[in-house]
């Protein structure tokens, strides 16, 4: 019940009724009392307190009360090498966070829907040994994945393409050279994830990478002028380089 109804009328010629007047001002049970109705019981809808044509306008909304946005950005280059800090051969055990490509944010309300977005420029020197000295192809993986509060968002799992094509001569391929498609494969990734029921508190989006270090020794032809030198073994690693990048979030509040 929202409409204010005075319980006591003020008729001329009658004795002033203090209790009735007090009830007109405030009632514990509600349904009457100007103060008590206005202290949290004003309602919208039919039978409510709002005038015809009432509408919430922009000036009535608390700053960031229904939509809030935040982001982090970075422009400096960041490089990762597979022989750096990774110890999990052949598994996806160790995902390492990409600096400045993720952010920590505070969710104020339980009811919020948050659209998280992240983007980065990436190019990689990821080798694919067609035939290495032991006769086995070697193509150690590099995988990116987004994590929210430490839990992987599996649908964001993305391997990186091979760009360093190492063509050994032990497998019968006559062209035992090195092809590089790193410039061709350089990409801009812009991804998103929507979440609700995050709950109030601090949350963290992080973009992480796993690099299998591999173990490849590859024989590559090295040519000086017109003279082809003998294939010479090289130890290969993977590198992923991040350029401009950003992460951000838009929180949509309000009751569903």
């Amino acid at each position, binding site marked *: 019940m929202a*409409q204010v109804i*005075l319980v006591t009328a003020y008729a001329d010629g009658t004795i*002033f009724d203090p209790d009735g007047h*007090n009830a007109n*001002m*405030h009632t514990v049970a509600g349904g009457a009392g*100007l103060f008590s109705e206005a*202290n949290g*019981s004003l*309602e*919208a809808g039919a039978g409510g307190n709002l*005038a015809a*044509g*009432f509408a*919430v*306008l*922009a*000036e*009535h*909304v*608390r700053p960031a009360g*229904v939509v809030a946005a935040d982001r982090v*950005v970075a*422009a400096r*280059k960041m490089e990762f090498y597979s022989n750096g800090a990774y110890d999990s051969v052949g598994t996806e055990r160790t995902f390492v966070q990409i600096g400045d490509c993720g952010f920590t944010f505070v969710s104020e309300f339980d009811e919020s*829907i948050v659209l998280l977005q992240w*983007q980065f*420029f990436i190019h990689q020197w990821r*080798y694919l040994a067609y035939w290495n000295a032991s006769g086995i192809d070697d193509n150690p993986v590099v995988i990116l994945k987004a994590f929210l509060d430490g839990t992987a968002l*599996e*649908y964001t*799992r993305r391997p*990186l*393409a091979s760009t360093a094509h190492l063509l050994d001569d032990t497998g019968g*391929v006559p*062209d035992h050279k090195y*092809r*590089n*498609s790193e*410039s*061709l494969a*350089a*990409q*801009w*990734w*812009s*991804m998103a994830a929507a979440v609700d029921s995050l709950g109030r508190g601090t949350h963290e989006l992080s973009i992480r990478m796993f690099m299998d270090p591999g173990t490849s020794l*590859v024989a590559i032809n*090295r040519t000086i002028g017109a003279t082809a030198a003998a294939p*010479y*073994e*090289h*130890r*290969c690693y993977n590198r992923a380089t991040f350029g*401009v990048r950003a992460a*951000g979030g838009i929180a*949509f*509040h*309000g*009751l569903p």
Partner: protein
Amino acid sequence: MYRHPKYRIRDEEPLSPELINEVAQPLAAKRHRIDGHDVNAASMAADVDVADNAYYKIRVYTDADGWGLGPPPYSMPTTGDGDPVTDGPVWEAVPNMSFTVTTGLGHLWINMWVQYIWHTFFLWVADSHHAYNYVSVSNDDGFGAGIRFAVRIDGEIYSGTATGHSDIRQVGSAAIKAEPEITTTPDVIGPQQPKSQHTAGVGPQCFPIRIFAIVPIDPGEHTVELVVCRVKFSRTYAPTATALVTSGTDRLHVYGRQAFIMEIPSWPSVAATASVEIPAMQSEDTVDQIALSTNRMAVLTTAYNNIPTGAIARGGLQHRQLPRAVYDWAQVSIEPGSGGVATDDFYPGYANTIGTVLEGVANRTNQSGWYLLEDAMGATFDTVANHPAAFNATDPGLFLVLANIQCASIERDGAHDVPSLFGQYAIAAEGDLDGTAVVQWHVNAASQALVNNFNTFGLPARADDVDPEEMDVAIMAIYDFRTVQLTSDIVRFGVVAASATEVGGPGSRCRNRWRHGSMQVFRFRPGVL
């Protein structure tokens, strides 16, 4: 804020003017500063009307600018409809992607999307259009397109949006070393490093670019632009189809493009007021029905039973008293089996977007039209699983759909070493979007993305290298029903794919293979920026 009667009048207590004034006057003052404490939150959130511009304002732009790759039999994409990008490291605005907006204090949330195609050295003599030509990885080690896009605000490139390196002379190093590092081979001086490449911009020959930005803004007029510059380090590609090539340089054109700009206010403007005036009770005033009821209590009662818009305090309401800032939303995702999923259905052409979506494994192969993506278990990549209800398209609103697809490879008959293999992705909606009273799939033309087998052409065939491309295809679609609505709701949104090759056309089995994917659908409130 909460207020209570200052006095409780007791029996036989002298009725002074103060007793009346100090309960009545605060009520009058409170009525034009009503805030979140004063309202029933659940009732307000459920039933209150919210003005179109109350939460945010939105500006959108869509341009379905075709790339000249029509229906089968295919030719190569031509530059007929696109806009050329000037070579050189100078930022220039992408045509039609400059927007002037007037805002208050707050943030701009920006999503921009564009499709580019790098037309390499291939001059189509007949109509002087440059056509697409492939780039071989084996040809000069396959330098990329070197294209950078960015969001520019009031003339300044906004940090975090330039699709490349801040240092345009960036060179990647080869993560390789000779073993042993000192060689005894007489014709080689020490260890030799393979050469590296300049890599400062995006490389594939054709690729969609989606950029987001969250930009703090001051009150006033602002110019928001999508800008582009080409950081090109190589012009060494030789013409290949010599019968058609005379001379000329390579070209890079932009095609379909979209913009979504939302102003999110962070400081409310000054609110109008709707005050209630009641006279103060003076000494010696007569306490009668007119004084107490007509001039005071009845006025206040009416005031609290008929609250006008102007009675709400500036910034007085927040999330608990208000309906949600988005009308509706959904997210869906697919995850692959071990080998991913592929379709070789034929691309029906850029303009062929109505009723051409096919579903089900039986329709995945050798059909003409778009194919609704699915995972290896047959779950379709549409919103039904997480949002079985239809999306309201009969009331004013605006949809923003974002999708990402892990495109693993574009191949033909198991081989990647084939020129001009294309994969297409787009966002589609099922409903009566064209007013024909037929509920069917409509592919969003402006969302069409074109990708190709950029990464391995020119390399020896390798049967086990099944996923050489490994790109993330980011697409986006805007459905603006703020002014004109549909007559029925949208049943579902989905992501569709097709494939095309100018080598043989239909039946050539160009396969477009994907693995993971995700899609976010948001239905926003109206509001015009």
